[in-house]
């Protein structure tokens, strides 16, 4: 992929999602590679609050679930590529690394970063998710009525 070509939105959504779910030390392992570029902080990592809203059953009227802390960061590499990150939590170092990864992924080394960084993270996340699902499934209880008791 050439850097002039706009990155397909779906692909970028996927890697930003994967980066936002990465645990702190998973990104830390790639720190030296990620920081190995001249870059500038357009928006230094900052912590804020965001309102989480939900819909009952996914289609009811929206209600305010509560607030959560988010950390966001924007970096720009020397060649003008801009990387954004929005992460849950208060980890500024992780936000900076995720923004750097987003910037690198929009460049000519796209495939390299995808293979080195995003795919292993996605695999680890899928494994964590499956383990969690399995633990949850083991506690599943089926409710059914034996006797209605009315007559």
């Amino acid at each position, binding site marked *: 992929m050439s850097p002039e070509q706009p990155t397909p939105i779906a692909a970028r959504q996927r890697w930003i999602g994967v980066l936002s779910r990465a645990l702190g030390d998973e990104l830390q392992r790639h720190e030296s590679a990620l920081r190995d570029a001249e870059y500038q902080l*357009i928006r230094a990592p900052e912590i804020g609050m965001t309102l989480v809203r939900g819909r009952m059953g996914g289609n009811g009227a929206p209600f305010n679930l509560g607030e959560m802390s988010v950390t966001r960061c924007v970096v720009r590499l020397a060649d003008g*590529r801009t990387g954004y990150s929005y992460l849950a939590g208060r980890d500024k170092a992780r936000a900076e690394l995720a923004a750097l990864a987003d910037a690198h992924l929009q460049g000519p080394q796209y495939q390299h970063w995808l293979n080195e960084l995003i795919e292993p993270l996605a695999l680890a996340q899928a494994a964590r998710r499956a383990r969690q699902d399995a633990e949850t499934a083991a506690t599943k209880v089926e409710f059914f009525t034996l006797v209605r008791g009315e007559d």
Partner: protein
Amino acid sequence: MSATLLQPAFADPVLDAQRSFRVALKALAGPGVTHCLQPAHQPPALPGLAAATHALCLALLDLDTPLWLAPAFDTPAIRANLAFHCGCPIVSERQNARFALLDDSQLSDLSGFDLGNDRYPDQSCTLLIQLPSLSGGRALSWRGPGIQSENRVALPLHEHFWQQRGLHNDFPRGLDAFFLAGSELLGLPRSTRVEEGV
């Protein structure tokens, strides 16, 4: 793509914005006194905007403050950076703006800006006026709230500005202005009476 135009803003977004806001408050509370922003607390240069103008934009503008830009400031770099760091909507109708960014070519016509209303005079449009310098004009005498007896101020402004200001000042409705040059700023609230020096 506008992302390549983005510049960093304040080094310490919270404290530097508060410091700039504090200076702006002092400037309006004591009209006609020149205040200076500390170099350490100024944002990095943005082409077209003086340091004080940039700092005040970052301190005052947010999602709820539509901004009107004079043509001189309506550049892709200024638009992109204000949209990114302040999130302020940029409006084309003067009437809808809560803040206006003006240069000295715009001062012979101040019509169309919101003067507030008698119940909410605070909803008027605030003018941020960038000048080449804050001195060098004819010295005038400023009197009114916040000034003990009189301040003599020599802004390099044309006679038209003072006529326009009089025309759009119907106390308590009216326009408040900040004059900005380099890292200096000076406030002119609607309550200040400006007369020929004696």
